[in-house]
């Protein structure tokens, strides 16, 4: 009997497709804003949300989404109004998130090891209601990311110019952070909270090796994310390992292949002289 015939595996593949598409779709804007570690920070905050779910006996996915969104809003407010630099605001998320997560898990009577399946993904723990939430939220994230792509690009490329053009930059900054938070929370069953950031950044890094434009990079990174998530999930199932690490390693392999391809192309085609 093929592993694909199991319902938990079918649900995991659907979740992997959603994660693979949404993580780079939002990640492209985050990389453009030079906030590649934002996903990591929000992942740590979402851990506190998971622990809160364990403590209160509610769905860890729901509480993770709520807490991650609150964390995203706080980091944007800190960056915008408290004149806190991006890296310091991120550091606060890292430390506060992991400390809150472990403390609340202990209070819930669980050990820190309980968090393991949320940190690195676990395909067998997903319920059908979880999957429904993942698909609905993933569809919203993907739709908003694509529909507002020109506005997000203008904002991420040159925030100063965008503000001077009347673009609501604070709204878009907040919206991108919230989309990242939702993406991270819905990805925790497949790739895990600690590694989801890699899926937001590595497909983008791979795509920009091969595409000279923002839109081309955006689209190709989603294709790379999809391949990484689904292939990584299938490999993890076949070797009975957690999916997060295998998904990230596949993404790394794609990046290596893209970088090598670019190197070969550059070697064969001497750089065009750029005139002044």
């Amino acid at each position: 009997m093929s592993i694909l015939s199991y319902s938990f595996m079918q649900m995991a593949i659907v979740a992997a497709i959603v994660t693979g598409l949404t993580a780079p779709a939002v990640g492209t804007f985050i990389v453009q804003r030079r906030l590649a570690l934002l996903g990591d920070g929000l992942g740590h905050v979402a851990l506190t949300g998971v622990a809160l779910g364990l403590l209160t006996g509610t769905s860890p996915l729901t509480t993770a989404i709520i807490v991650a969104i609150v964390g995203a809003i706080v980091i944007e407010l800190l960056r915008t109004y408290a004149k806190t630099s991006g890296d310091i605001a991120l550091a606060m998320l890292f430390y506060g998130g992991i400390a809150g997560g472990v403390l609340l898990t202990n209070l819930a009577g669980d050990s820190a090891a309980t968090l393991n399946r949320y940190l690195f993904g676990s395909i067998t723990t997903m319920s059908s209601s979880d999957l429904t939430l993942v698909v609905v939220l993933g569809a919203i994230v993907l739709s908003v990311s694509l529909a507002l792509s020109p506005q997000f690009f203008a904002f991420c490329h040159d925030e100063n110019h965008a503000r001077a053009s009347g673009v609501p930059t604070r709204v878009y900054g907040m919206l991108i952070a919230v989309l990242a938070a939702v993406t991270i929370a819905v990805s925790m069953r497949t790739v895990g909270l600690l590694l989801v950031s890699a899926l937001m950044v590595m497909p983008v890094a791979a795509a920009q090796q091969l595409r000279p434009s923002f839109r081309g990079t955006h689209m190709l990174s989603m294709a790379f994310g999809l391949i990484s998530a689904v292939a990584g999930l299938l490999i993890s199932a076949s070797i009975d390992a957690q999916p997060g690490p295998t998904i990230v390693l596949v993404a790394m392999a794609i990046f290596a292949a893209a970088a090598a391809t670019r190197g070969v192309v550059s070697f064969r085609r001497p750089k065009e002289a750029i005139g002044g």
Partner: protein
Amino acid sequence: MSINRAVIEVESLGVAIDGNHILHDITFEVQGGEFLAILGHNGSGKSTLIRTLLGLQRHTGSVSLFGTPQNEFRSWQRIGYLSQDNDHTTGVPSSVEEVVLSGTMAKHRWFGWPTRSEKHQAHDLIERVGLGAHIRRPVSQLSGGQRQRARIARALIGAPELIIMDEPTVGVDAQSLEILNQILAEEIQRGASIVMVTHELGIVRNLVNRTITLEAGKICDTCDNVMDLHAASLRDHYEEHHADSHSESDAHHVPEHDVRPVVAEGPLQ
């Protein structure tokens, strides 16, 4: 196009950042079709003034754009803004076409993609600034002058009635300066108003109608009818003022290069 009607009215403008007073009691107007150059040395408050005009900086006093108080102004597509270069060599690659088209977001602030006519307009502008061969190239791979030309095209998309430029000539090669001069002449011909912050008038001196000079956050000099003045009288004008400012404070000395292009040999044209 609003010719001969104030497009910018500034009265008693003041800006303080972290308790430091950057601009004091600034009052001036820019008329439709006029080219105003704002001169001054580093730290004189030129860029802060530009940012304030565009609503990027909190201020006291009043600023009106096209007769509308700035805090009520929403027609940002009527203004083209050329910001100072920021480093676009990292992050996701962005093609020249994408950067120029991002200028249309003043019109599509909340939703919407660039239209077909806007794409045609972007392509025309990219040709005008001499980047037709680089339209699909990432701006990070262009020279400083070429990146500036891409930003000029972005500022001009949508045929704005007012063009505000912050130091457009800094670090720009001769070819790009020549293209900038040509483009600005065409925009003036079209009826656009231009406000340019610069250290020196340089190649655009023959296009400028009027200058104001900032020093320590105040307007220390206004020169109307620049076109009608001869270099010698301008030199006298600046030297007279300069002597005054020296007597007030040596710390606010205006470097010679700030005024050199204005006092070049021969009459201004």
